[in-house]
């Protein structure tokens, strides 16, 4: 059984990350943006895991756990913010959340 080369994982990771970036930049729905950020985080996780496996080292795996923990915390705080904004603005459109301007 042949081993899948690490570059395959990296390409997949890059594609997922690019999708996340495109989602953050072009989507207006704040929930979608949020999900795109999660996607980017997981793309990075994938890269970490792939490298950890390829080099037979545990460091990458440890990082992944950290990222997952931070992502969970971020999801909790972020969703709370989203709820508050939605209460205030009656909208999920991120374009309307620009009151920090100037």
């Amino acid at each position, binding site marked *: 059984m042949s081993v899948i080369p690490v570059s395959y994982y990296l390409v997949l990771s890059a594609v997922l990350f690019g999708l996340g970036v495109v989602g953050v*930049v*072009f989507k207006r729905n704040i929930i979608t*943006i949020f999900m795109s950020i999660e996607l980017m985080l997981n793309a990075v996780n994938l890269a970490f895991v792939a490298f950890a496996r390829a080099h037979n080292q545990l460091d990458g795996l440890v990082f992944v756990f950290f990222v997952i923990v931070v992502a969970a915390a971020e999801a909790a705080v972020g969703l709370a913010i989203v709820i508050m904004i939605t209460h205030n603005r009656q909208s999920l459109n*991120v374009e309307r959340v*620009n009151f920090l*301007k100037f």
Partner: protein
Amino acid sequence: MLILNHLWIIMALPLLGAALNGLFGKNWAKSAINSIAIGSVSLSFLAVLELIREFARLTPDQLPWIGNYFTWISAGSFRIDFSLQIDQLTIVMLLVVTFVSSLVHIYSTGYMAHEDGYYRFFSYLNLFVFFMLTLVLGANLIVMFVGWEGVGLCSYLLIGFWFLKQSAISAGKKAFITTRLGDYAFTVGILLAFWTFGSLNFTDMFKSLAQMPSESLAHAGVLTTIAILLFIGAIGKSAQIPLYVWLPDAMEGPTPVSALIHAATMVTAGVYMVARMNPLFSRAPIAMLVVAIVGALTAFYSATIGLLQTDIKKVLAYSTVSQLGYMFLGCGVGAYAAGIFHLMTHAFFKGLLFLAAGSVIHAMGGEQDMRNMGGLRKQIPITYWTMFIATLAIAGIPGFAGFFSKDEILDAAGSGPYKNIALWILGLIGAGLTSFYMFRLVFLTFFGRERFDHHKVHVHESPKNMTVPLMVLAFFSIFAGWFAAPHLVGGTDYFEHFLHPVFAAYAPQGAGVEQAASLAGSAGESGGIAPNPAMELVHAITGPPVIVAVIGLLLAWWLYIRRPELPGKLAESMRTSYRVVYNKYYIDEIYNALFVAPLLFISRYVLWRVVDEGLIDGVVNGSASVARGTGSRLRELQSGNARSYASWVVLGAVGFAVLLLAILGVTH
């Protein structure tokens, strides 16, 4: 030796008075302001009297007595001490300044009684006395210059005392700016003096001068240059041709100010300076000639203007310019003592004339035009008599103060070692004109029919605090000249004898000039045994100056009392020349066209519109608008739109990655 050891007391008293009244006087009662103002100056006068008592005990080798208080400026070899100096010349000046100042202060309590800013007036007046004393007491040119500028400042403040009146403000500025022109030359002269002598102390300068040979009329060197530069300062301060124009305008100030500053003391500072620097001037014959010519020309020229003025104070102003010309003429022909003598007698009689004119103006309720006066002698007898005495004194009628001093000056101009017949004739004609315009003033004001409306003007004699100073000054206008009286019968001229050491100590050595020294010092010494005192006396009181004075008197009497319709006809028949003189030779207009208008044009259209608005504002506004333009572009980045921030982050990350790859690509 209290005052001699503490000379500063004399000048500190008026300064204290000025500070107290100026800082706290606003809410004080007039009596409090009066007692501080008069008290400080008269205490200063008493200090001077005490000083004279102590001074009399000094031996000649202790003179000049110098009080050195502290080192004021020290930079390399340049060292200026704050030091004061006492010698005979200072004593005379101190007496005149403090005495006349005290009288003017007393007079002002009556004259200014109904004015706003009472405390301000007395504060300025005290400050003036302080600076004047600094000028007189200074033992080096720099301390003297401080006083010199300080009196100019006080003059400016007091001319513009009624600062709501446009003409007063302009007159103040005119005085300040015009004298500044002279002061520029004066400062250059001081620098050159330091460069030449290595010190600015009078005694040091005179000692190094004593080692220097005299310059001649054919050869003008650095001494002549210094002397002329200093004299240009005196031209500005003492209102001589061509910078005299500020003094007549200075009459916008209150009359006591005209009496004290613009007649008795400040304007004579130039004469004092020339007399003080006599070792320098005596070694620079060309400068002496310049001084004499400027003095004689001014004496004659401004007397002609005085002939036709109708404002009582303007007549006196031109008269002051003219009399200052006599003082310079005296100094210029080597008779420094005569110049200072005239300075002293002039301080008394011209101060009196101004104060009496103020009393007339007071009596007439503010009227200054002599054409609207007349017949006042019965209603204001004290003013009339004192003013008449002063007029006799200035006209040079024998027995009165002005006779002695003016006679000495003309004598020196006509027969001294520096004699100059052309200048003597100019001075003589000027003396005749002086007599004419002064008696014209008296006759127009006090004689003839009354040319004002009785119902509108309530003529009244001034209060005691105004008339008493008049009477005191009248006393001195008669007797201040009598120090020189024995000279007429071949005896000693005590005034010249007193000043002799100042003018003889550093007089240049040489055949022709030794004579000058003896003239400057004590002309009377040789005449101990005159052949016939009675003949000398007759000769003196029937000399040319007296004859022209009497002619002036008679002419004025003929024109303004005997045939009062004649002056109008004369003016009609000589219309053109009358116009020119009446308009003061259009000098103000000429200066305006030559200097003021171009200066204003350049200031307004070149300096303001082009340089200031174009260049300076352009640079400032330009840098501001560049910053604002950049800012307004850059602030669009701060859209507040989270997605645009995210795009920038991505762009940055991509750019960074590309950069990294590029670097890696290059290194591998």
